[in-house]
């Protein structure tokens, strides 16, 4: 094992990790806001990837340009999902937790089925894009441009999110609603509106990652599943509900995955992630940045 291999592994892991973080942050945001785990998170990613693909296939819009469009579309989609489904699921008098799980889990199955029906199960790819297949090479270390740009977008998105949550009125309303949904009603904040915007924001962030992923990943109705699993681990690792825990969790997952593959056979590379996760659960059950 040469130094070059190690650096390359760490670099690849870091880039992937930043993307994992961006994928996971929507999940963390929604959970932190209202204690609902969105089991359709992977399917949100799938929809975003398909949206990017269709914008490319029909209008020849490069994924880099369509990313804001996809994010906006996903914002509307996420808000609608809250207003039409989750809002009602949350009203359940008995076993509210279960009802929420089944509502979003059922949504995932419906979305997957609809995607297979409407888009066929065939594998799609964005065949030509500005970034696709391009690589920056520095001293023998290869940094694929799609992942590189993805990492930059991820950092920018987290910076924006930080500003948004800490510096804007809506961000404060988000925080306040999360602290005490009952009390905010007294000061005139519409809980449903805040929740809907939270879902929209969470979905928009997945939309952003989906648009970038579409450049270098294949697209099919089940594509969300493997990423969703990593997103759940990322969120649990970083701390449920902590937006910046997702950022840190993503980086940890990416790096651990890459370094595990250096020492263990690659087929076992996810073992490292779950081992670290278990360790966190034992030592710090609320996750690295969790505040529960």
């Amino acid at each position, binding site marked *: 094992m*040469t130094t070059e*291999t190690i650096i*390359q*592994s760490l670099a*690849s892991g870091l880039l*992937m990790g930043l993307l994992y973080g961006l994928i996971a942050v929507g999940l963390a945001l929604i959970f932190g806001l209202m204690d609902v785990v969105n089991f359709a998170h992977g399917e949100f990613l799938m929809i975003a990837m398909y949206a990017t693909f269709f914008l490319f296939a029909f209008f020849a819009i490069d994924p880099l340009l369509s990313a804001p469009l996809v994010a906006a579309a996903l914002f509307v989609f996420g808000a609608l999902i809250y207003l039409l489904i989750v809002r009602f699921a949350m009203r359940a008098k008995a076993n509210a937790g279960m009802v929420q799980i089944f509502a979003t889990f059922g949504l995932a199955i419906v979305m*997957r*089925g609809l995607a*297979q029906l409407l888009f*066929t*199960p*065939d*594998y*799609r*790819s964005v*065949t030509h894009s500005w970034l696709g*297949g391009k*690589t920056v*090479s520095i001293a023998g270390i*290869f940094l*694929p441009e*799609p*992942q590189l740009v993805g990492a930059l977008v991820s950092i920018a998105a987290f910076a924006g999110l930080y500003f948004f949550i800490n510096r804007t009125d809506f961000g404060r309303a988000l925080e306040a609603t999360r602290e005490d949904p009952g009390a905010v009603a007294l000061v005139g904040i519409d809980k449903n509106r805040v929740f809907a915007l939270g879902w929209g924001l969470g979905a928009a962030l997945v939309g952003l990652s989906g648009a970038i992923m579409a450049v*270098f*990943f*294949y697209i*099919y*109705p*089940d594509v969300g599943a*493997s*990423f969703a699993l*990593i997103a759940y681990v990322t969120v649990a690792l970083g701390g449920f509900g902590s937006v910046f825990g997702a950022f840190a969790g993503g980086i940890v997952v990416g790096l651990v*995955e*890459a370094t595990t*593959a*250096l020492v263990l*056979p*690659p*087929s*076992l*590379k*996810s073992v490292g992630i779950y081992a670290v996760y278990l360790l966190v659960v034992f030592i710090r059950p609320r996750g690295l940045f969790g505040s529960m």
Partner: protein
Amino acid sequence: MTITRRDVLLGATATATAALMPLAARAQTSEVVIGLTYPLSGANAQIGVDAQRAFETAVDIINKDFELDLPLAKGEGLPGLGGAKIRLVFADHQGDPQKGRAEAERLITQEKVCAVLGTYQSAVAVTVSQICERYQIPFMSADNSSPSLHRRGLKYYFRASPHDEMFSAAMFDFLDAMKRKGTKIESLALFHEDTIFGTDSSNAQLKLAAERGYKVAADIKYRANSPSLSAEVQQLKAANADVLMPSSYTTDGILLIKTMGELGYKPNSIVAQAAGFSEKAFYDAVGDKVEGVITRGSFSLDLAAKRPMVGKINDMFKAKSGKDLNDNTSREFMTMIIMADAINRAKSTDGEKIRDALAATEMPGEQTIMPWKRVKFDEMGQNNDADPVLLQYVGGKFVTISPAQAAVAEPIWPMK
């Protein structure tokens, strides 16, 4: 004459019986139900959808009258069963061996199928064929290629197409031939997924490499449907073997090629164990990056030049699916014909009789759409006369490059 109520009842019963008699008699032979288990949802759903079209094409040819030199093409239905038509029942196993087991059981007990075909993933064929064995219903692998499948002592297991040892032997025959021509091929890198298909394939290749004196520079087993393959590709790159030999399904195949491009890895040649490397979706996604890739196959459209029937059947399939027949769909098509032929000769839908008829199959290669010598099963249910071919992807289509008797072009080496 007075008509009593009793007479009316009697008369009605008689009429009803007379009317029902032919129906009941017909019901026994009018329909032969064959079960198919495929991934119709999940990661490989498209494979299942394409398989449906292939089987439907075969059933069309059997159930209707066609002028083709293929068993059962002429005339309608199965003559051995009084012209009975074949009906297909598809079951979705989602690529999951446990679901495959449950679906096979349902096909046999609820749908009353007299034979089961499947399953694409070899891992699923393991469980499905066990269930069929228990119910004494013949199972035929259409597109499973793991060599361990026919070595489990099952009486009701059959496979007309080659398995991965035969395929791998054909690859090494080709490599040997290239070496004799002076091409430098010393080291190989194996890259395979972690289910029975990938592991069996790499075991066969490891054994052949040792026997024929090739150095295995890397043997990388990866987790199927991984979100990222960069660590794996990096190890392949570090090994820098002369030939890369992947055994991957479509999703991983696409990601492999994309990641190789991103990490600046370009082997002299890729010789693939088909699967993903036979699929249109793979070439739609990364075809421009793999000009000159070589894959094994059990089918070659080049055969249409010698055997016009192949072209005609390909057109029929294309009308249904929008795709040319490939390695998988051709085997699926042929398997249906072979199974129907056996049922026809068995003159029965009884599992044991069909099994015996299958065991007695002797179909010359000219009556198939494959480049095979013939279809004849050994005592383990494997057809050893199914000769594989190697195909090279050149200018957007496949050309046959090996073995010599089937080749239509010289191989391009190294690939571009």
